[in-house]
């Protein structure tokens, strides 16, 4: 099937605009991050009510008929006052604008993917540029879900920074024109395996960032002089740990599935389901590291800093797999198509 040049051009434009708009969102979030301390703390208190101990706040405004427990009513007032101060905080407004802009960026990002797939008549993840596009998309969507559930919106800069960086690298160094894929990739397993692995990799970005922030927090606790101004603006360590854990726990089975799908595909494309090809090997290492993370969180003496470090190591290996193995080591997965 020939490539439709107009559509692929549209895809490229959407891609560029998405990156630019993320950059704009980043600036807005930066304003919130820099000036929005008060509003943020209020939001945090309300957030604690959402998934912490003062549960009743989530039960709706309607007070129970009988004499309700006191926690419920205080939490409700707290949430109300938080909402009020949120309305007031000007920096907060930048934050909500940032979210709106980020959603717009995500839609353009999605358009870039759709046009790319449409122009080539295949799933839009057949080379490294496209893989990176999917990965970043997954990271952005994950983050939007996370901030709808946890009061961590003001951390968006830290997530958008690596996303924009990766999109920039993808759009410049790794860019490749839209073409169909070679015979070995013409399989519905391309759709299943690559999409799940790319998405899981992108989702892993979020816990990676949360864990880095967690370590800054710890460093500050050990020596209050260090990173004081940064840490003042961070949510609690528990909150960061919870975000890291919950997102990892979602991404890990997806990644596992992606690796299994890859093995099934390898069985029909390369004649064996597992052959220690460099890319397979690093996927295995990634898997073992995230398994280690889950164990660490259940092992006394390994929770906290060490678990966070393991999580970061996991994402570092994901990035290593993407860049080093694709570009430096030759293997069966040499479909990167970087000119």
């Amino acid at each position, binding site marked *: 099937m020939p490539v439709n040049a107009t559509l692929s051009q549209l895809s490229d434009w959407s891609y560029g605009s998405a990156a630019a708009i993320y950059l704009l969102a980043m600036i807005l979030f930066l304003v919130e991050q820099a000036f929005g301390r008060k509003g943020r703390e209020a939001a945090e208190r309300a957030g604690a009510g959402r998934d912490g101990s003062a549960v009743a706040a989530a039960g709706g405004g309607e007070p129970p008929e009988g004499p309700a427990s006191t926690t419920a009513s205080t939490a409700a007032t707290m949430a109300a006052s938080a909402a009020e101060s949120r309305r007031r905080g000007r920096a907060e407004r930048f934050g909500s604008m940032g979210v709106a802009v980020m959603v717009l960026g995500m839609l353009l990002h999605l358009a870039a993917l759709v046009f790319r797939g449409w122009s080539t008549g295949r799933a839009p993840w057949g080379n490294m540029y496209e893989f990176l596009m999917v990965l970043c998309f997954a990271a952005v969507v994950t983050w939007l879900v996370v901030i709808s559930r946890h009061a961590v919106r003001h951390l968006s800069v830290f997530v958008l920074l690596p996303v924009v960086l990766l999109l920039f690298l993808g759009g410049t160094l790794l860019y490749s024109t839209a073409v169909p894929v070679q015979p070995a990739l013409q399989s519905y397993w391309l759709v299943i395996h690559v999409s799940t692995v790319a998405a899981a990799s992108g989702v892993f970005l979020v816990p990676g960032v949360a864990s880095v922030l967690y370590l800054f927090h710890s460093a500050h606790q050990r020596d209050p002089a260090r990173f004081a101004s940064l840490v003042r603006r961070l949510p609690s360590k528990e909150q960061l740990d919870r975000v890291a854990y919950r997102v990892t726990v979602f991404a890990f089975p997806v990644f596992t599935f992606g690796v299994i799908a890859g093995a099934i595909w390898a069985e029909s494309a390369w*004649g064996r389901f597992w*052959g220690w090809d460099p890319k397979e090997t690093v996927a295995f*290492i990634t898997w*073992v590291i995230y398994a280690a993370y889950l164990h660490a969180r259940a*092992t006394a*003496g390994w929770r906290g800093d060490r678990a966070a470090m393991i999580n970061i190591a996991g994402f570092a290996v994901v990035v290593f797999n993407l860049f080093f193995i694709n570009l430096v080591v030759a293997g069966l997965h040499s479909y990167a198509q970087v000119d």
Partner: protein
Amino acid sequence: MTTGGDGGPAARERTYRDTPVRRMLAFARNTWRGLTSMRVALILLFLLALAAFPGAVLPQRMVDDSAVSRYIDDYGWWGRLLDRLQFFDVYGSVWFSAIYLLLLVSLVGCLVPRSAEYVRSMRAKPVLTPRNLARMPHHRAGELRADPDSVIARAHDRLARWRRVERTEQDGARTISAERGYLRETGNLVFHFALLGLIIAFAVGHMYKYEGQVIVHADGSEFCNSGIYAFDTFNAGLNVDGTGLTPFCVRVNDFEADYLPNGQPDNYRADIEYQSGDDLRDGTWRPYDLQVNHPLRTEGDRVYLLGHGFAPEFTVTFPDGQQRTKATQWRPNDQVTLLSDGATKFDPPGVTDAAERRSSQIAITGLFAPTAHFNGKILTSSAPDLEDPAVAVDVMRGDLGIDSGYGQSIFEIDEKMVEQDRLERVARENLRVGEEIELDDGTRISFDGVQRWASLQVSHDPTQGWVLAFAIVMLVGLAASLIVKRRRLWIRVSPSGDGGAGSLVHVGGLARTDQAGYGEEFTRLAADLLEDTGGERDARNGSERNRS
């Protein structure tokens, strides 16, 4: 130790004698305990990740043997040291095996007691209701007009899907302890057992599997999976001796490759026929369209289309008028343009004298291009498709060294023969199809055309179905163990109000795993449990009580 301070050394001696046997037992016990602890499992997981790493960056024998040789040549003593330390066979190395065996032991040692614990906990009743439910992470309380009996009855209804037990406390308060999410532990155990199964199936597969590659001309040539000799290369597990391969035959009738205008391959397909099982006896051939990603599966074995290439066909007309025609496969040395090299070798016909034969053997060696492009006289290929084939050949005459007893590559001539002047170049020419060379003795060599060949791989792995099954079970177990939340709920109901007609109700909740997420469910449950369904009379009582 139980010895007090009052017993003398002799007394201590009696209660605890430090014999070598005991010391060894203690050592074994401690080692076992250590090995099966989470901490050690964690460290072993790390070591496994670390040990797997060199395999990703260094060439591996099982993947690419020649890359390993090149690496060792390039890096000298460093390469030889790495080789000695098995860094080019990471996944079969002593140290990698040691780590994964230890992990396996640790896994078994961890699973056995956990399974026992699991059975016990599945039988056990939910724990006693804590004295003060207000201390629980989740708590709601309320005073209802309904009497304790109906509150408790409704709670049983509402908690129908929870495992629960009702108890009556000393002061007459009635409680229900409920617990849910046992599937988490089930999933976790299923996951770990499936992982164990997967590792074992994988290891067993490695003992019994084999892989053989063979090149078959796409002109109706046949290949039969009858023994190691039928293959060009053959890799097998320790328990495969090459006898008893599953019998089947494959005949390659045609090969087709489609390319996009830019030269990128779009599709490869081999038109084949095969026979296996009963077909072998009655001679039935079944057609199959063999493609990349679309292997032939028969009798538990798989046949893959790995690659393809060209076999230029040459005819040698000897001075006495005898002709010999041959199309030997040449190997692609550029995967993009399929520029190939090779050597097509001829014996002079009808020559019985060995010495004479060895002075007049002929080899045609050089380059083949499917779409020729000449830079002056230098031949290259500009595309992989068979558009304008040409060869650039050296014709060698003399002793090819085939009788020396050493095997030689079908793609090359023996350069030693050239160095010893026993093989001599007698012509160098570029040829298109139909062109020919005439040698000084009148021998004519013509380039007749091109045949295609397909390279096939036969793979056999008796346990791969098991590995897949374990992998799927593992995934299901993992999902269950990560998604399901283990959680507890307690309700305490004591009589209240006039004559105990109403109830004072406390509801407490605790998520045993990750706290987040239980909140909403608890709120919903607690709201239901605290909903007042008392009748008319109760309602009046209730309002009176509220007023007071």
